[in-house]
């Protein structure tokens, strides 16, 4: 199994969250879920122990995409939707870097949808954090490609008409090798997912349910409200039976038709979660459990399979070309082909 961080230099000094803070004033609205995510990431990175200068955050445009300014690493706040493309060029030419992409639901799934799916299928070494607040925050509250049908916003006063994407289903369909979901307010869970993502070889897509308290407040309320959250959240744990509910009395099982059904926890044939299953159909079925009413919403790692990363394959082709033909010789190249000499 390839370690994507094998070539990234380690910091001999012990790091703390503070090392990753910049002197820039954070400009998100008070109460925005982005703060919690920032703190969680800054709190997590010291665990990796990588040299700060070998970490890069690349973002698109949106509230979420301001993230790199607040990280004391290298960073690029690029243009709307294109961060996965820019990060692909960086990651595939610099194996000594840990490259992270920060993007929003509009950035990743609307204008940048094409780049996202292609990054996923290529399996470039990128860790993509998709801040999903189901709204366009920065442009002041239009509906987004993850907004529920009928969403009333400034641009859809009579309700939005188009069906949303489910980012997890989309990523699985796009051949992603690592797909996870977590929640801004659950720092422990968020960090546990980041831990797996960071060491995953290839592209990791982490959808983070993020509250925009200004334009889409309480979008994920059932998952956050202490009274309901345990009842409706399915915490996926690799190798564990999929049991949930406040009293852990509900479980998932494959129905005769092949889809998933909720059954009492003591039923026979309760599903055991296997994120490493090469067949993505079960992970996909899990992703379909979401509903607008959040009756049962899985969080955690849906899929985590091993496959070579694009950048290591690219590197191997170069290494093999050099091993077989020797390093390039410019004079020989320019003077190759059918030549003639004039004396």
């Amino acid at each position, binding site marked *: 199994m390839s370690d994507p961080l094998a070539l990234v*230099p380690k910091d001999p000094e012990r790091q703390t969250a503070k090392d990753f803070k*910049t002197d*820039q004033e954070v400009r998100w609205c008070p109460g925005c879920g982005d703060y919690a995510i920032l703190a969680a990431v800054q709190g997590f990175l010291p665990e990796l122990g990588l*040299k*700060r*200068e*070998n*970490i*890069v955050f*690349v973002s698109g*445009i949106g509230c979420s995409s301001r993230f*790199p*300014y607040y*990280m*004391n*690493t*290298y*960073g*690029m*706040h*690029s*243009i709307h939707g*294109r961060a996965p*493309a*820019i*990060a*692909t*060029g*960086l*990651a*595939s*030419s*610099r194996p*000594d*870097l840990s490259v992270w992409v920060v993007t929003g639901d509009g950035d990743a799934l609307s204008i940048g949808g*094409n*780049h996202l799916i*292609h990054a996923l299928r290529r399996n470039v070494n990128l860790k993509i954090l998709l801040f999903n607040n189901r709204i366009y925050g920065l442009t002041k509250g239009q509906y987004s490609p993850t907004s529920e049908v009928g969403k009333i916003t400034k641009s859809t006063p009579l309700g939005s008409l188009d069906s949303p994407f489910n980012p997890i289903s989309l990523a699985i369909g796009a051949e992603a090798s690592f797909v996870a979901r977590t929640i801004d307010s659950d720092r422990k869970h968020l960090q546990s997912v980041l831990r797996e993502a960071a060491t995953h070889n290839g592209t990791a897509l982490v959808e983070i349910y993020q509250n925009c308290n200004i334009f889409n407040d309480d979008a994920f309320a059932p998952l956050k409200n202490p009274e309901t959250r345990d009842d409706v959240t399915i915490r996926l744990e690799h190798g564990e039976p999929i049991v949930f509910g406040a009293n852990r009395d509900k479980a998932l099982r494959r129905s005769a038709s092949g889809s998933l059904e909720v059954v009492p926890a003591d039923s026979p044939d309760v599903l055991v979660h296997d994120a490493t299953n090469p067949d993505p159909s079960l992970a996909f079925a899990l992703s379909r459990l979401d509903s607008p009413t959040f009756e049962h919403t899985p969080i955690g790692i849906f899929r985590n399979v091993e496959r070579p990363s694009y950048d290591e394959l*690219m590197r191997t*082709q*170069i290494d093999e*070309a*050099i091993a077989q*033909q*020797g*390093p*390039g010789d*410019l*004079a020989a*190249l*320019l*003077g*190759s*082909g*059918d*030549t*003639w*000499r*004039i*004396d």
Partner: protein
Amino acid sequence: MTKQVRQLDRVIIRFAGDSGDGMQLTGDRFTQETAAFGNDLSTLPNFPAEIRAPAGTLPGVSSFQLHFADHDILTPGDAPNVLVAMNPAALKANVGDLPRGADLIVNTDEFTKRALAKVGYAANPLEDGSLDEYRVHSLPLTSMTVKALEDFDISKKDAERAKNMFALGLLSWLYHRPTEATVRFLEVKFAKKPEIMKANIAAFQAGWSYGETTESFSVSYEVKPATLPPGLYRNISGNMALAYGLIAASVRSGLPLFLGSYPITPASDILHELSKHKRFGVRTFQAEDEIAAVGAALGASFGGALGVTTTSGPGIALKAETIGLGVATELPLVVIDVQRAGPSTGMPTKTEQADLLQAMYGRNGEAPVPVVAPATPSDCFATAVEAARIAVKYRTPVILLSDGYLANGSEPWQVPGVDTLPQIDPAFAQPGQEDFQPFKRDPDTLARPWAVPGTPGLEHRIGGIEKADGSGNISYDPDNHDLMVRLRQAKIDGIARDVAPLAVDDPDGEARVLVLGWGGTYGAIAAAVRRIRVSGDKVAQAHLRHLNPFPANLEEVLRSYDKVIVPEINLGQLALILRGRFLIDVIGYNRVRGLPFKAEELADVIRDVINS
């Protein structure tokens, strides 16, 4: 039978046939033979955009024109002396370009009633006297080929396919071309199909022998080698020269080359070529679209690579926003636009120069980028190196404007010594700086430091939002924005101090008319200027490689002539800029036919201006 050998100083041959007839390959091989023989040459391939346009139709005609001479020449030639027409469509599409008295070699096997009707010939032109002003050689090329290959274990179809090699053999005899390299070429090309290989070689040799024995040709021709400066030569197309130039820039800068590209005619061959050179550490990334291609290149540049993206006009339109990001983040980036006829899809395989204004101004905000353009196919090499030099030294995107004519055309190129190529210093920011300022500029070049990830202590964030001068922190301060807009412009303007002054070709300094061109029209303009001088008139010529910024002496040059003619394959884009910049009313000459200018056409224009 001993045949007469006649000496010629130059010949223009055009091979024309169906797009399935292998005319490009035939032309290419004849070119290689001619190059190896030591003539100077220039080529003009012309083919449909469709991969297999309907057989036997006018839109399906593909041709390859080659001009070769015993002296240095500048263009693929205005009109062919010899036309090889493999079918009625090829004849019909090309005969209009033939001057009286030209040789016409026709494959009579294809002149069936049906084939003639398909292109609207009511009568067979070979029989109705309509070709009387040419020297027509009516040859059953297909059946002669099939007959020559009787003993080979191949299908009739494969035998018929070899007719282009028969024709090549015949032409090779007619012009005394060396044949060894073509035999070797066929051996390699068909290495996996030995029967086909042997058949093609046999057809090639049969064509040659036919020339020797037939009475159709009583004369063969010799064109002596040209006297070019001593050195090692090879034939090179514009796209190949761009690919080599980029590799050379990578080697001479020590920066690994990263190409992000999305296939598009006529630029794809640069991607194809570079993808073969992994041993130089070249990374080629075929992206999902042009936006991703330039994005990945810019990302690689951020990481300290020589980021390059190659495309044609429609792709430049898609890349505009990212080029703007490159302007704002001030990172090196080479953007190659192999221009084709537009707007929109236009005519993908036809040439044009109509992307100049897009390159100059096609971005939001004040977003100046240097623009350079090669003059000839082989000049693409040096221009690519120059684009990379400017990009790295000034930390800026640079747009290189090639075109379809340069891309596919070819000419002999004197292989430069590696030591003669410019050295490019990336001058990366070094670790150990207190209070690093990513937008503190070099006082001479106004370039900012290039601090790549992995450099300890220089961690910083860049982006498209306006930055404070020096610190690079986000800034919405009005005066700072005005300052930054001006600084970015001043940085690009200042490059004028770092490029050679515009050279003017005005032999005795007495010309009153200057012809100023840019890009791929160089050859046609220079050939026209020669004709004017031969006829005793005086005219000066200058050609711009640097379109932004202009060479520092451009205004002075323009002002020292009474009249300035600016021929362009667009509706006057350089002329517009010159008028706006210098208030000089240059005289435009504009034809936008998807084809290069002809020397005679430009000579007429120049003559008219001189006499007016």
